[in-house]
């Protein structure tokens, strides 16, 4: 790129950012307005004064604390369950030879692309049979299923990149296989493990459809469903919804920034490995 093109870059970049961040400007603008300003026609961008009351109101007037708690329980539970299944499977895929391996990996990659909608009809039946309707456990189980295949993919890639010799040395020194995984492989592959944990956590945190289908009681709603129910009951208090959205988005956006590169690599496969 030549220097001459540089002057054109800034206006274009700014234009792109305005388009991509537009709703977040709206979110921030509305979250700091009192109700009288939120419902003024024509609306205005800049609040007359920074109004912080919305942020305290949502904790007292709405069960926001319980939404956060539920989302947290579901996300932690999903992450734990997924990791328990995913670590041995990823190890087997990365380190061991067995006949069905490439078939299974192929299957996982294909399965990853399914919409949960296809199976939600029958999952509903299964969840009901297990007596798990309207429980957080139902969401832990279903979120884990849909995070698991990609988690195995992601983690086995990290395991593969670590030289075998380190573990082999440990095995020769009389470590059991399990010990060599826990003491040697996992610490060395920690960045990959953390990435997989974050990915799973975020996917559970953002999940909406299963929550919508399986959860009926108010006190079991995760954030996505809880905020959705702000809408369509009585009149929407948009300033409260926007303030809640800020609080709900900040943790995931920050976490996401850590894994975004790995996600792109993991999803595009060899296509972007330069």
């Amino acid at each position: 790129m030549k220097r001459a093109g540089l002057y054109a870059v800034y206006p274009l970049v700014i234009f792109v950012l305005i388009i991509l961040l537009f709703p977040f400007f709206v979110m921030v603008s509305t979250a700091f307005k009192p109700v009288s300003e939120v419902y003024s026609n024509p609306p205005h961008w800049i609040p007359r004064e920074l109004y912080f009351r919305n942020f305290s109101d949502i904790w007292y007037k709405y069960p926001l604390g319980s939404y956060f708690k539920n989302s947290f329980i579901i996300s932690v539970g999903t992450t734990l369950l997924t990791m328990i299944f995913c670590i041995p499977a990823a190890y087997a895929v990365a380190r061991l030879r067995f006949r069905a391996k490439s078939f299974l990996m192929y299957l996982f990659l294909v399965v990853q692309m399914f919409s949960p909608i296809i199976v939600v009809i029958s999952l509903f039946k299964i969840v009901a049979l297990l007596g798990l309707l309207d429980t957080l456990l139902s969401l832990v189980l279903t979120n884990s299923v849909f995070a698991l295949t990609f988690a195995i993919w992601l983690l086995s890639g990290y395991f593969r990149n670590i030289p075998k010799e380190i573990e082999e040395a440990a095995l020769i020194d009389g470590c059991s296989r399990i010990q060599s995984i826990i003491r040697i492989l996992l610490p060395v592959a920690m960045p990959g493990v953390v990435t997989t944990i974050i990915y799973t956590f975020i996917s559970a945190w953002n999940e909406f459809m299963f929550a919508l289908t399986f959860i009926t009681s108010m006190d079991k709603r995760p954030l996505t469903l809880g905020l959705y129910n702000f809408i369509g009951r009585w009149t929407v208090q948009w300033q409260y919804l926007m303030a809640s959205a800020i609080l709900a988005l900040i943790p995931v956006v920050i976490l996401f920034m850590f894994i975004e590169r790995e996600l792109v690599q993991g999803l595009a496969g060899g296509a972007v490995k330069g």
Partner: protein
Amino acid sequence: MRGKFWRTESVVAYLFMVPASVFLLVFMFYPIVYVILMSFFRVNKLGDLMSFSGWANFRFMFDKPEFWQVVLRSCIWTAIAVAVKTGLGLVIALLLNVEFLGKKLARTLVIIPWASSVPISAMIWQWTYNNDFGLLNHTLRVLGIWKNPPIWLAEPGSAFAANLWVDIWCGIPFMALVFLAGLQAIPQELYEAAEVDGATSWTKFRFVTLPLLSGVLTVATLLSTLWTFNDFNVIYVLTAGGPGTSTDILITYIYKYAFQYLRFGPAAAMAVITFAILLTVSIIYARSYFKEGAF
């Protein structure tokens, strides 16, 4: 490599695969089989299989003009969204590939729509689209870009466009980032060699950039096709397929049939059709994924 060692290695491997496989069998493969069964049975409001009904559930849907409208809309939805995401993603990637002050910050900001939770983004957009108090129409009017913007979510046509835009907006960052990664993998020497041969910017783009990006383009477009076709959250939150079913795509329509109308049989039939479509595209994606980089 026959013998005891090999045997034990594969025994260990299968043991390690058991927990994940059993879990997937129960909660993924069994539900798929059950949905296929449901689609060939009369199903009551609780989802129990009542009696074998052959193709009746499929015929029930095929006889509805509305179903075909939804199928057509899903195709249009996917085609437009993927094309726009790919185009804009490529433009943004090219922009971010230029060296300028604040590039890192710009890249980080571009990610945010992808990083935020889709249902929550859709709620924010719903408020943004509000005609009386929303800042989108207000800004369009004030800047003179559009004197009479539509009441976005009230009319079928504009509601479809509004849904489509939010889906596109959510999908742009991934496209931009994946193309950027692809661009950065192109060796600089190729551009220098092209310049020596007197290539213009356009010819460099046409004969160096595009051919070398083709692998990334294929994989990203296929992924995007799957995601776009499956975008339940945006439509459900913004308009729930309304007004009427005018903004439903197959994915939201299936959900509506199952959990609003409680017609599990026809919903299962549509799920099976959707499953077949997705399976086809997924297999193509998996193939191009492996072709680009075997594991």
